[in-house]
Every structure is written in C-alpha cells, then in structure tokens.
C-alpha cells in the first residue's frame, strides 16, 4: 500500500481547463474523498491518478515514484467505475480473475485468489452466473472483487455507489468502509454527495471549478471552511451567510451586525468592506434577551430537530433547534450565536478570514 502525492496537477482539454494546478497528499491507508459538484474536475483528477488521462502538467508520486506519464497497466492501481463496467460477455468468476489472467498468474493460484475474494465479499454463490442478471449491489461487489483480487497499491473509486438505489447505498457504504478498514488500502473515492464524504472519509478534498478549495479532515472542513463555497457545499442545511458591511480589526473578537455586537473568534486579519458572517444552523439558538432579532418565516419538522427559517436584517437564515421548542410562523424571536465555529468571509473573494479558530487549518489548505 502506498502514499500518493499530487503536485501542481493540471489537465486541459483543448481550451477547457478541467483541473487547475492542484496539490494534495493522500497518506498510506487513507480513505480519501474527492468531493465536489459535477464538472468540478474531481473525476478527471481520479482518472489522472489511475492513468486513464494523462496530465497536461504536474506530477503524481505513488510510493515515491513519479508515475504521471505511465500507462495504467504499469501503475498497479485498481479502479472501480460508477457504472461498474463489468465485462458483459464474461461471467462473474471470469470478470474477477481478468486482471490476474493479464499478469499470467498460474491457474491454481488464480482459483485460490478468486475464492478468497469472493468469500470476503460474500459472492461465492454467484461466481458462475453471467453478470447481466445481477442486482446492482452484486454488480458492485463483483466490481470490487475485480479491484481487490490483484492487491493493488491503491484503489480509485468513481462514485461507486452512485448507480445504486438509496437503500442499497447505505448498506454498501458501510460494507465499503468495513472492507477498507480490513484491508487498510489507500483509497481515493470520488463523490458529489457531501454526506457520503463526511461519513466515510478520513480526509476530504473539496473541488470546485477545477480548483482545490480545501483539503482536510471532515471535521476541520465542516467547522473551519476555507471558502464560502466549501461552507455552502458541506452540511445540510448549509452554513448561513449574513452579509454586512463593516470593518474587522486584527485582534477583535466581535463584529457589528445591524448595530448589534456579536462575538466571533479572535480575528487575525484586518479587513474592511463587504463581509459575510457565516454560522452553522445548529449554532443558532433562540434567546428572549437576544438583541439580534428576526421573524420566523417557516418551520420544517424533522423528528428530533426542526429547521426554522428566520428573516433578519442581514438576510434569511436557517436554525436547527430542538423539535420541542415552540416556533410559530410570524413570531419575532431573539437569536444568539455560538461563536465556537463562526467564520467570517470576504464577500468579494469568498475566502475565509483568518482567526484563532481556523488559522492552523487554513495554513495548509
């Protein structure tokens, strides 16, 4: 198993830039998520690591070796496709053993390997079936089998659960994570589903418009987003943005929102102009003595919590509060903000402002 280092990787298709100089490191044994909306370059990045696309510039190191210009067959990386890409003219067993046959492995060895893999994945009973009639989950298991049977240095997975229905997806994501923990194999996983990324990943790279927006652990990315895009993309409902015009001095620990002083983490960057106050819905609470007030526009009941949409002087926001707290549409309520994860952004650049909270995360992001 191996560490993968991506350095200034870039890919152009004619005039279109799919990936702009991107750099990040995938540690040995990590379950690494490439997250972003469709068309952001995450799949292209994955395909470059696997060798299905050659980068326009930049380097890819696998276990210290530069591999960016090698054909896929010389990289020892397995790939699981979104649409499974099982060979339709072969049965399950032949699909799984296909990579071993290309290595010229002995028949008895191949048989033992396939038996072992199919036992791990629980597909022993379908080995002789054609792949055409299999359910989505079984196809996915066969595709995984084909990937793990060769003990590659790393796995690339391109939205492997995207083609499954919701119920199966849940189960397969658990199976996948369990499989990873058991094999401890470096895995790069592409998804557009932020929940999936948070749930399964050791680390996440968030990409948008061909650029790496942030790179870190799920918790760092959730609590300390580096850009407004990340803050908006991660979390459901996403982070609230209250726009205000003002000045933030270095060392200050409060900002003025519509005339009310609201405390924020100690700021490490002085900025004046259009700013954005970002706060997660669960860090907003109702307090009758709160000076910052708003009017309830809507409530959504979710069982243990409810999402309350509130109109304020700086824009609408959503708060996640306990389901048993009273909230009636039309009521005016006082709000208080837990400063723990408040992030300020420069509205023009979308970048987070440095504070005591996020300075370490942003330093390498």
């Amino acid at each position: 198993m191996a560490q993968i280092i991506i350095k200034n990787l870039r890919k152009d298709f004619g005039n279109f830039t799919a990936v702009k100089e991107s750099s990040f490191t995938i540690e040995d044994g990590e379950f690494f998520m490439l997250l972003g909306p469709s068309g952001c370059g995450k799949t292209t990045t994955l395909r470059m690591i696997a060798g299905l696309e050659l980068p326009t510039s930049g380097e890819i190191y696998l276990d210290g070796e530069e591999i960016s210009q090698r054909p896929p067959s010389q990289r020892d990386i397995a790939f699981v496709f979104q649409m499974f890409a099982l060979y339709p003219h072969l049965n399950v067993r032949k699909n799984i053993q296909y990579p071993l046959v290309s290595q010229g492995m002995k028949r008895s060895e191949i048989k033992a390997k396939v038996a072992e893999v199919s036992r791990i994945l629980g597909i022993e009973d379908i080995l002789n079936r054609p792949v055409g009639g299999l359910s989505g989950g079984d196809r996915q298991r066969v595709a995984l089998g084909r990937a793990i049977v060769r003990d590659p240095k790393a796995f690339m997975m391109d939205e492997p659960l995207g083609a499954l229905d919701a119920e199966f997806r849940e189960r397969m994501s658990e199976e996948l994570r369990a499989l990873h923990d058991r094999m401890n194999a470096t895995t790069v996983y592409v998804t557009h589903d932020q929940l999936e990324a948070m749930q399964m990943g050791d680390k996440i790279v968030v990409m948008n418009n061909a650029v790496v927006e942030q790179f870190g652990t799920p918790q760092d990315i959730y609590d300390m987003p580096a850009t407004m895009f990340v803050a908006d993309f991660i979390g459901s409902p996403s982070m609230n943005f209250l726009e205000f015009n003002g000045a933030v001095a270095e060392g200050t620990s409060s900002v003025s929102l519509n005339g009310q002083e609201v405390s924020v983490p100690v700021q490490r960057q002085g900025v004046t102009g259009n700013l954005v106050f970002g706060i997660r819905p669960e860090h907003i609470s109702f307090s009758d003595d709160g000076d910052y007030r708003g009017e309830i526009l809507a409530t959504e009941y979710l069982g243990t919590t409810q999402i309350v949409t509130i109109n304020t002087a700086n824009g609408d926001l959503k708060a996640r509060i306990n389901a048993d707290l009273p909230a009636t549409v039309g009521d005016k309520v006082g709000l208080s903000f837990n400063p723990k994860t408040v992030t300020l952004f420069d509205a023009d650049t979308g970048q987070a402002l440095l504070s005591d909270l996020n300075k370490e995360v942003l330093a390498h992001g």
Partner: protein
Amino acid sequence: MSFSVTEATTRQKWMAGTLVILYAVISLIPLVWILMTGLKTPPDSISYPPKVMFEPSLEGYVNLFTTRTRVSKETLESLPPPANFAEEIVRNRDMVIAGPSKFGQRFMNSVIIGFGSTFLSVFLGTLAAYAFSRFRIPLADDLLFFILSTRMMPPIAVAIPIFLMYRNIGLSDTHLGMILLYTAVNISLAVWLLKGFIDEIPREYEEAALIDGYTRFQAFYKVVLPQAATGIASTAIFCLIFAWNEYAFAVLLTSGTAQTAPPFIPTIIGVGGLDWPAVAAGATLFLIPVMIFTIMLRKHLLRGITFGAVRK
C-alpha cells in the same frame, strides 16, 4: 427479454399473423417461381399457359453445369449406354456432354470476391470506426463526411474511369481488382454502421481492461470486439449482399478469369436457345450462400438492424 405495453388480444394476433403470412407469400412468389423453373424441362418452362403442375426434371441443372454438342442419331446409337442420369437427360435431346461449363468457376469467383471484399471491408471498417469513435482525430467530422460522400453518387458513374485505370494498372479481370473495388464501395457503409455500434459500447469496458493490465490493442480485441459482434455481423451481411449481387461493375470489368456469377448467368441464355431452366437453376444456386450466411448470423441481425432502439 420481451416487453409488452398491453398484451395483444387473440384477434389482433390472428390479424397480425395473417398479414405477415400474406406479405411473406407475396414476396416469396418470385423465388418459388425461379425454384420451379429450375426444375422444369425447357419446353415446360416456356409453355403457355404457364405450368404450375409439372414433372420435375434436373435438366436445367445439368445444362447449367455442362456444355453439350448435338450429334447424329447414328453416333448416338453407337455410344455405350449412359453412365449417369445427366448423360441420359442430355441424350434424350440428341446431344452428348462435351465438358463442364464455366458456372462452377464463376461461382467460386463470386465466393472469393464476395467474401474477400466483405472481410476486408469489415476488417478495415472496424479499425477505422474504432479510431473515429475513441480517439480525438483532427477534422474527424469532415473525414467522416468525406467517407460518406463516396456513397452520394451512383458507383456506376465512375465506372468508365475505373475501367480505364484498371486496364492501365493491370487490375482488369482480376480477383484482387474486384475485391478492392467492392471494398472501396462498401467501406463507407461499414465505417458508419460500425461507428454507431462502437459508440454504443461504453468506454469504461476498455478502461477497465486497461486498468486490469491489458494494452490498448488487447482491450480492443478482448473487450470491444466481442461487444461489437452484433454490429460486425450485420455490417458483414450488408457488405456481402452488395458484393454478391453487384452486376454493373462485374459486367464491365470482368470477362474471364475473375468473372462473377451475376454477369455469367445471363450468358447461359445464348447457348442453344432460351434455356430458362438453366438460368433459373443458376439463380437458385446463387441465392444459397447469402442465405446460409444470413441464417448463420441471424441472431445478431435483428438487434443489428434495430440498433440503438433495443438495449439489453
């Protein structure tokens, strides 16, 4: 796999069945007539009103495969008794068999040229279609249009230039010349048809093979070719039917060694009167190879002809 929006009623099934049978009968009548004529004697074949019931005879087939000479009654009587049924039939007409006719040879020419050009068209067409489908080729659309444009005029419009060129470079009346010519005509059809089929095969299959440690060429023949079998089969049938039935170029460019069956069969008419049974026998035999080829590939054909519409 079968789908039905609504199950057809028994009456609808009957009506559909009747229509299909009616259509089949109408289309098959000329074929049946040719088959019957081939089994008639020459007098039966030109009798008026036409005979539907007749005593079958192999005279047409015997005449097709032999050349015969008329001999006097005395010579005929001095000969030993006929060695086989063919000689017996011929002697009843006061003739003896002088030797084999050229039909067998012409038929073989048709087989060599027809299957040769089909193989070449499909082989080159598959490679070209794969390249057009998978690689970024500069001016790919223009090239494809150029390939298609070769079909836009009737091939016979260039017959005279080709005739002159072939004479100059010595391809006239050669197997190679005819194979190349039919390939040139068929290749555009092959490229376009096969590109459609290969476009439908997801790239992921090949990419999976590349990841699994195979080279691009191995991925092509181990993964793409089996997937394209349907397309290759139906393209092959179309190419074979064209090359097999082609008449105009064959008349113009072949006269001897490479003459195919279509220009040869009508020449039978001139030998010893209007020998319709021999012509019909030749036509019947001529139909058989395409029929066998089509039947062999028929399971691919249905999906092939409706490609795009039916997916597994």
